[in-house]
Every structure is written in structure tokens, then in C-alpha cells.
């Protein structure tokens, strides 16, 4: 009975567990810091468990629909509502479940890492509460089936993220970065809200499935599309709207930066959900597909070339995060550009999308790992300046090993996970346009070159006198990095298992607009 109730309410629990956890955390923190830390880890573990169960449920029985406040979770359309699902509905398909799983996994790694990395900071009650709220925002964005609800979770995501970016203050520089992030997020959120209002004005509904089923692609819809697309692409850090990324990523605590990467990917998910599910074949998919591809290519190239001359290790990694987002945009953009041509979709479009989606989870793992290693270096040396670092391979061997794993993965070196997803993107995009694939490969080479520089600057060389007393970071930080390293290796060695289990269903869910609509409206 209890088990059945639990399984029936998984989508609600996925949000309720971290939200309750966030609000209770400061209360427990007033009594004991140790108890608060244990509580936060337990909440994140429980959230991951719910995400795993929900993903299993979605993969075994299809899209899970959950109606809040209804007599039964699957009663989406009340009898007296005129056919409109007026309640808030979560529609978790394979794409949403995939994103929720990725966010929860990184969230757990970050939480374990924070147990040690946050010990020197004040305001830990707020830190853990906001961290859990950031997880709530991400999970809500990827699970909801309601546009206004999506906006609400986008705002939770942005506000928690901005507060966390500013949390270390750092003579005001971190506060400035947090302010920039907050202002741009607010502007983006405002445009998302305006776009939602335009859609609501036309179709009298906020539910994604209802709007999608009635979509006419009128001029107002086109305006709404541009607002949604550009605002969410900016939140994802696409060039040339990426300027906030190095500021925010470099000034946030490293644990938070790792999660901010996932927060940005939730916005990327928003872009994909809007173009594939909300608009689908009604939009000019070739034009929008090429817009996404161009944003992707710009992000890849500008991101990596801006990374190479950087001297702050976290700014460098932030530019690489921009660059890697470009791969995802490129892969999924190619899939969108050929959406209306079933033959091209089957030949390379689906593989390109799968490559882009696979790169999302791979990037979340290895980029999260790399930011955690950068945090470990900062934790022990107090500097992020590559010109001042060196010789740490003598004293921080575990961190060095984790860094090598992350660096090889981001550079697309086999057998790590980055190679698998990049290979899928290279081969499929080459069939679409060889020049794009060549640019993608050149960017990978530049990425490797950049991380060779970082590796040399931080770890190689003789032991420097100023770091003679440096030793390895505490165990919780090692465990957090080890967890992500293990996933990077496993996803790289068994890529087809991951693709079969998570990626193919996720890409299929994005393409299958009719299936999404039917799962919510029951074919109505």
C-alpha cells in the first residue's frame, strides 16, 4: 500500500523532497552544523533515489503524467473544464527523466564535496538551503508540463543560483557577478513570461500539450518563439550571450559552479522542449534549426579560443563550458533542421540528436568534475591564478588523477565519455555539413591543447616553496570527485548501454510530439 502510494506520487516527491529539505535545513542548522550536513546529504540521496525510481518508471511504462490536486494523478482534464487541463501537470517523459537523473547525480556529488569545501565559509545554513532550492528549480523545469510553472521554476533556479554565486562575497567581486547573473536572468525570465502571456492570450491555456495541440504558428507565436528561444539560449550560455558565464562561474564556489552547469543545461532543455514539443513541425524547422546550429558553432569556437589565453583556471573552465554547450546545440540543431525529412532524420538526424543529448549528461559529469578539481586547488592554495600555481602533482595526487580524467573526457579522448558523444556528433554532422564537423573536431583539439596547459601549469614542475605545506583535500571532497570520475569512466566504457537505456528514449521523446500530447490529453 505504502509502496504503491510512493510509486504513484514520484513526480511530486521529486520536488517535495528537496523543497522540504531546503526549508528545514536552516532550522536543523540552528541546532547543529553536523546534523544539518547529514540532513542535506540525506535529502540529496533521497532525491536521487526518487529520480532513479521515476526514470525506471518512465522507461518501463512511458511518459508519467501527474496532476496536482486531482482525485487521481492521471486525471488531467476535469469533466467541467471544457477540455482544458486547468491544474498544474507534470509530464515526465524520457527526456525529462534523463535530465532529472543527470541533475540528481551531479547534485549528490556536489553535496558530498560541499561537506568539506564549505566548512571554512560562514552562512552554511543558507548555503545548503539555497543549494537544495537550486536543485528544486532544475528538477521542476525538466519535469513540468505547464509553461507558467516552467517560468516559476526558472525563477527559482535563477534566484537560488544568483544568491549562491554571490555567497562568497570576495571583496564584492562575487556579489557583482551574482548581480550580473541576477539581472540577465530576470530579463530573460521576463521575456519568457511575456512569451507565455502571448501564447495564453491566443490559446487560453498554459499547458504545453494543449498549446502544442492548438499551435498555428501565427506571427504572435513566432514572436513568442524568438523570445523563448533567445532567452533560454542566453541562460544556457550560448555565444554571443555568454558574457555572464565566466563572471558567474568563476566567482561562485566551485561546488556551486558544478551545479550551475546543470542549471544552464536545464535552460538548454527548455530550448529543446520549446522547439520540438511546443512548436514541433508547425515551425520553420530548417530556419530555427540553422539558428541553433549557428549559435552552437559560435559557442564552440569562441568559447574554446577565449579559454586558451585565460590565466584564471575557473574562467578558463567557464569558457570551456560555453564551448561544450555548442556541441549540444549543434547536435540537436542538426536534428531539428531535418525534422521534416524522415529519410534524413533516420540517416543522421536522430544520431545527431542522440549525440547532443548524450553530451548533456557527459558534460554535466566531466565539467562538474573539473570545476570540483579547480575548487580543490583553490581550497588548498587560495589562488585560481595559473601563473602562480605549479608542482601540485607532488602533493595532490588524487586531485591530479581526477583532473586528468575530466580533462581527457572534455577533450574527447577515448575511452572517456566525451569521446563517445562527440563521435556521434562528428559522424552525423559530417553527413549534414562536413564543414561543421571539421570545426567541431578542431575545437576538440584546441580543448585538449588548453587543458594540457592547465595540467602543466597546476600539477607539473618542481614542488614550489610557497606550496611546500599543501596536502591532499579532505575525504568528502575526494569522494565527490571520485563519484563523478567513476561515472565519466563508466559512461565512456559502456556508451551503448547508456545510449540504449537513456539517450535513445530521450531523443525519441523529443521527436514524438504527438506522443507527448496524447500522454497528457489522452488523445483528446
Amino acid at each position, binding site marked *: 500500500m505504502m509502496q504503491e502510494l510512493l510509486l504513484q506520487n514520484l513526480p511530486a516527491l521529486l520536488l517535495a523532497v528537496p523543497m522540504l529539505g531546503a526549508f528545514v535545513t536552516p532550522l536543523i542548522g540552528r541546532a547543529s552544523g553536523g546534523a544539518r550536513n547529514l540532513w542535506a546529504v540525506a535529502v540529496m540521496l533521497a532525491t536521487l533515489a526518487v529520480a532513479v525510481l521515476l526514470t525506471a518508471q518512465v522507461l518501463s511504462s512511458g511518459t508519467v503524467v501527474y496532476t496536482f490536486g486531482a482525485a487521481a494523478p492521471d486525471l488531467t482534464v476535469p469533466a467541467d473544464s471544457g477540455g482544458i487541463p486547468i491544474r498544474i501537470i507534470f509530464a515526465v517523459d524520457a527526456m525529462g527523466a534523463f535530465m532529472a537523473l543527470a541533475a540528481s547525480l551531479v547534485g549528490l556529488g556536489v553535496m558530498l564535496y560541499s561537506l568539506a569545501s564549505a566548512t571554512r565559509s560562514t552562512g552554511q545554513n543558507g548555503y545548503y538551503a539555497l543549494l537544495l532550492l537550486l536543485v528544486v528549480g532544475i528538477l521542476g523545469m525538466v519535469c513540468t508540463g505547464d509553461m507558467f510553472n516552467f517560468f516559476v521554476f526558472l525563477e527559482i533556479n535563477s534566484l537560488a543560483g544568483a544568491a549562491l554565486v554571490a555567497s562568497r562575497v570576495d571583496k564584492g567581486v562575487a556579489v557583482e557577478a551574482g548581480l550580473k547573473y541576477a539581472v540577465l536572468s530576470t530579463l530573460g525570465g521576463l*521575456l519568457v513570461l511575456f512569451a507565455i502571456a502571448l501564447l495564453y492570450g491566443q490559446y487560453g491555456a498554459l499547458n504545453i500539450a494543449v498549446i502544442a495541440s492548438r499551435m498555428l504558428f501565427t506571427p504572435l507565436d513566432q514572436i513568442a518563439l524568438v523570445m523563448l528561444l533567445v532567452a533560454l539560449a542566453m541562460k544556457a550560455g550560448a555565444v554571443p550571450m555568454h558574457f555572464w558565464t565566466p563572471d558567474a562561474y568563476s566567482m561562485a564556489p566551485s561546488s556551486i559552479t558544478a551545479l550551475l552547469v546543470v542549471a544552464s543545461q536545464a535552460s538548454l532543455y527548455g530550448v529543446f522542449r520549446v522547439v520540438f514539443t511546443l512548436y514541433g513541425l508547425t515551425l*520553420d524547422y530548417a530556419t530555427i534549426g540553422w*539558428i541553433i546550429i549557428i549559435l552552437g558553432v559560435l559557442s564552440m569556437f569562441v568559447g574554446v579560443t577565449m579559454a586558451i*589565453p585565460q590565466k584564471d583556471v575557473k574562467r578558463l573552465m567557464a569558457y570551456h563550458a560555453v564551448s561544450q554547450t555548442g556541441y549540444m546545440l549543434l547536435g540537436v540543431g542538426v536534428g531539428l533542421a531535418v525534422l521534416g525529412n524522415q529519410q534524413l532524420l533516420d540517416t543522421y538526424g536522430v544520431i545527431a540528436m542522440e549525440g547532443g543529448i548524450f553530451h548533456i549528461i557527459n558534460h554535466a559529469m566531466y565539467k562538474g568534475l573539473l570545476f570540483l578539481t579547480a575548487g580543490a586547488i583553490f581550497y588548498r592554495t587560495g589562488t585560481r591564478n595559473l*601563473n602562480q600555481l605549479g608542482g601540485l602533482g607532488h602533493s595532490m595526487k588524487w586531485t591530479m588523477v581526477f583532473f586528468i580524467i575530466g580533462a581527457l573526457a572534455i577533450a574527447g579522448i577515448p575511452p572517456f565519455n566525451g569521446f563517445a558523444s562527440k563521435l556521434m556528433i562528428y559522424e*552525423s554532422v559530417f553527413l549534414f555539413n562536413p564543414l561543421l564537423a571539421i570545426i567541431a573536431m578542431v575545437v576538440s583539439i584546441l580543448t585538449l591543447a588548453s587543458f594540457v596547459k592547465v595540467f602543466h*601549469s597546476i600539477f607539473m614542475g618542481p614542488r614550489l616553496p610557497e606550496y611546500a605545506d599543501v596536502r591532499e583535500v579532505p575525504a568528502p571532497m575526494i569522494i565527490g570527485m571520485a563519484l563523478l570520475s567513476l561515472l565519466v569512466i563508466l559512461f565512456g566504457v559502456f556508451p551503448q548501454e547508456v545510449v540504449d537505456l537513456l539517450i535513445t528514449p530521450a531523443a525519441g521523446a523529443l521527436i514524438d510530439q504527438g506522443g507527448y500530447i496524447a500522454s497528457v490529453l489522452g488523445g483528446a
Partner: protein
Amino acid sequence: MLDAYTLQTGTGFWDPVVWIVVFLVAFLIALAIWLLGEKEYPRDTQAVKPFLSGNVEPEKADVHMRAGNLYWGFTEAMKGYYSRLVPLHTGVLNDYVLWFLGVMALVFVIVGVAA
């Protein structure tokens, strides 16, 4: 059984397990060659010190290549590109907003023209 680990990429495939096996074999061969090398060289003597045309070897820490010196040639060769790209990253929030709104205006035009 290996088929189960082979990633299908549409037009090709990638088998990480085979790659790891080949890598390990190559590593073992390299290790074997290394083990065949001279083991009895005199450590901690002049024999292992680098010869710098008779000059005294500086302290290791003094000659460690720092990050700022790496890829100087690359950035110098790309000076024309970087001299235009780097100044765009002003750090000024007003500029960030302008870029955002500018891209939105451009996409409006593209979508409008295409429609």
C-alpha cells in the same frame, strides 16, 4: 559479447573495450622495452644532470614554465582575431544586455523574413 559494448554511430562504430585491450597490450610492450633498459646507471651524480653548455643549472622552480608563457605563439599568430574578440568581453552589464537584445532583434528579423 563485444557487440553489446559497441557504440553504433550511424555510419560507424566505436568499441571502447577493444580499444582498452589494445591500449593495455601496447602498454605492456612499452613496459617490457623499458624493463630491458640500463638499470645500473649512477643516480645522484653528474651523470644524471643536464648539460647546459657548461652553464650552471638554475633552480628548478626558477625555470618552471608558467601558464602565461604557454601558447604565446598561438595567441601571437591569432593577434588579429584576439584583438577584436577580447575587447568585446568588457565585463560591463549594460553591454551584456545589449548583446542579448541585439541577438533577439536579429533572430526576430531572420524568423520574420523566413516566414
